[in-house]
């Protein structure tokens, strides 16, 4: 695998690995228990090394890295803790719409504070009655002079309580359905913007997920991203970009579980032998290794296509669904290899199993990915 990667890509991966191994993984069980994102412990350190928001380009204070590197980094961060990778990834998810449709002025204003001062971002698309069916969202935005007035309720928003900027999708023309959606940047502290219920989750508990409530929120027209009506396309383009990152995170979680299972199987003795000597366990471990390798390859293929400016919607959906299904299976099997110890919170594998589940759900459920794949291959 290494033969396919450049020296920079490997160095970026190593940096992310060192950071995850020293600054994330040792604390992950504790953060998971506390169910809160350790912003004060992490922001400064991650800003210093450049991992706080890896999507921001050099022109706005970040680093120009390719999609392959982005995936390699996400794999390592999620190997450390998927909750942390999700939260940091939330900054990138909230930044892609700006990068795709923002003016230079908008990018500079909303991206630089993230990479220089640890500001955070949120991507606010989902609503109580609009999950997979994005186009049916009910949040509205009416133009009044130089402003838009936003009204609605978003749910399951990563970094909801933490974000300094929210990228909000709202209908500017409800009669137009998907073609009537538009995108706005709402800054923290804007009158009428608040957060509601904080989700108590099964996994990725170190990440913050909340409702975001918009009550007559007035934003300057200058905060609109792209043209009116471009919102749906912008959301889809954003998810195209971010899906390989979710896939890479899945590879990281799966790898963590696999490494632990492999190590444990060699040490645990039953019937007078290490359990790794039993063929039934060997088969599980072999399947894990094979699945992780193929998931990573497919993920990197999607990233390579993007880096070469080629279409990658198909591979992006494929790697997201495939790698996250792999993560679910591998983490479940890792619990099995560890037996009762795997089920105990003394060992990390149960956390990885809980964490893996969300990866099949957010940024488009795996059913929706299969729909995208079918649409592409049946064209």
């Amino acid at each position: 695998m290494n033969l396919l990667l450049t020296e920079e890509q490997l160095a970026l991966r190593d940096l992310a690995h060192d950071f995850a191994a020293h600054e994330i993984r040792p604390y992950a069980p504790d953060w998971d228990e506390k169910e809160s994102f350790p912003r004060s412990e992490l922001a400064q350190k991650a800003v210093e090394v450049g991992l706080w928001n890896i999507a921001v380009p050099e022109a706005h204070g970040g680093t120009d890295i390719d999609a392959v590197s982005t995936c390699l980094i996400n794999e390592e961060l999620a190997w450390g803790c998927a909750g942390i990778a999700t939260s940091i990834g939330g900054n990138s998810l909230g930044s892609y719409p700006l990068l795709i449709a923002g003016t230079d002025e908008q990018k500079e204003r909303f991206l630089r504070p993230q990479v220089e001062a640890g500001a955070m971002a949120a991507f606010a698309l989902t609503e109580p009655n609009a999950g997979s069916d994005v186009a049916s969202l009910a949040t509205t935005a009416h133009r009044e002079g130089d402003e838009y007035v936003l009204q609605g309720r978003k749910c399951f928003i990563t970094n909801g309580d933490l974000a300094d900027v929210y990228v909000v999708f709202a209908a500017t023309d409800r009669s137009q359905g998907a073609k009537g959606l538009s995108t706005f940047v709402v800054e923290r502290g804007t009158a009428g913007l608040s957060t509601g219920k904080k989700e108590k989750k099964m996994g990725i508990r170190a990440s913050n997920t909340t409702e975001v409530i918009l009550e007559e929120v007035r934003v300057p027209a200058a905060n609109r991203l792209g043209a009116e009506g471009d919102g749906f396309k912008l959301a889809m383009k954003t998810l195209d970009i971010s899906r390989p990152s979710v896939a890479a995170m899945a590879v990281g979680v799966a790898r963590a579980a696999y490494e632990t299972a492999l190590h444990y199987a060699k040490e645990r003795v039953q019937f007078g032998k290490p359990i790794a000597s039993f063929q039934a366990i060997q088969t599980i471990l072999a399947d894990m290794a094979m699945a992780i390798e193929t998931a990573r390859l497919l993920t990197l293929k999607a990233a390579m296509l993007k880096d070469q400016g080629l279409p990658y919607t198909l591979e992006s959906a494929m790697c997201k669904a495939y790698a996250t299904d792999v993560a679910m299976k591998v983490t479940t099997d890792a619990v099995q290899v560890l037996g009762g110890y795997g089920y105990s919170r003394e060992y990390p594998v149960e956390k990885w199993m809980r964490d893996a589940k969300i990866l099949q759900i957010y940024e488009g459920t795996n059913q929706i990915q299969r729909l995208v794949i079918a649409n592409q291959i049946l064209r």
Partner: protein
Amino acid sequence: MNIVVLIKQTFDTEAKIAIKEGKIVADGVTQIINPYDEFALEEALRIKEKSGGDVLVVSAGGEKVKEALRSALAMGADRALLVETEGAAVDEGIVASALAKAISGLSYNLVLSGWKAIDDNSAQVGGRVAETLGLPQVNVVTQLTIEDGKALAVREVEGGTETVEVPLPALITAQRGLNEPRYPNMRGIMQAKKKELKVVTLSELGVSGAPQVAVKNVVLPPAKQAGKLFRDDVATSVAQLVQALRNEAKVI
């Protein structure tokens, strides 16, 4: 302030070492910058950040060592120099004379290195380079202050520390505790490729001669013996333990 940092590429401290035919199997083992040299590099970067200047990292070794030099550039060093020794038989003496030759013509105020490398633990190269260049040297340093053309170095001595003052240029070797090395940052990694990495060969430096030290064999330390448990009642176990400590372990 122009600073030269001598670094060596070594096996990762967490690497599993295997030996075949009296040699360490290098294939597939992750290589890192020798941790003591990393302290030296970090110190150089801090001095540079405080008072400006230029940090040159120098290493001797094969093609693979370029990776270590690139890591140093990613951490913030300005330039790198590799003394190419691929295929040559070298010992600490040859490496030290090559490094000394390589930097002798340069203008520098300070040379930093680790006090030893974690692989061979020979702790010779820094000292030999200083001797060859006629520089004052302070070894095993845990605190360093540079001011008014002098280096004030705190070093470990048995039972305490001593502070040594030397005029610059000088050579200082770093001990654990000197600082906490930084991670390279993403921007540093992306810029590293654009920075200068020069290569000179031993013959270009005019360094020749046979090594004075030959490695006859390399062996792993003996495997740890399983512990012994005394499971009888307390009185008997204690008696057995004392016997074992006296007769088997011979420690009392």
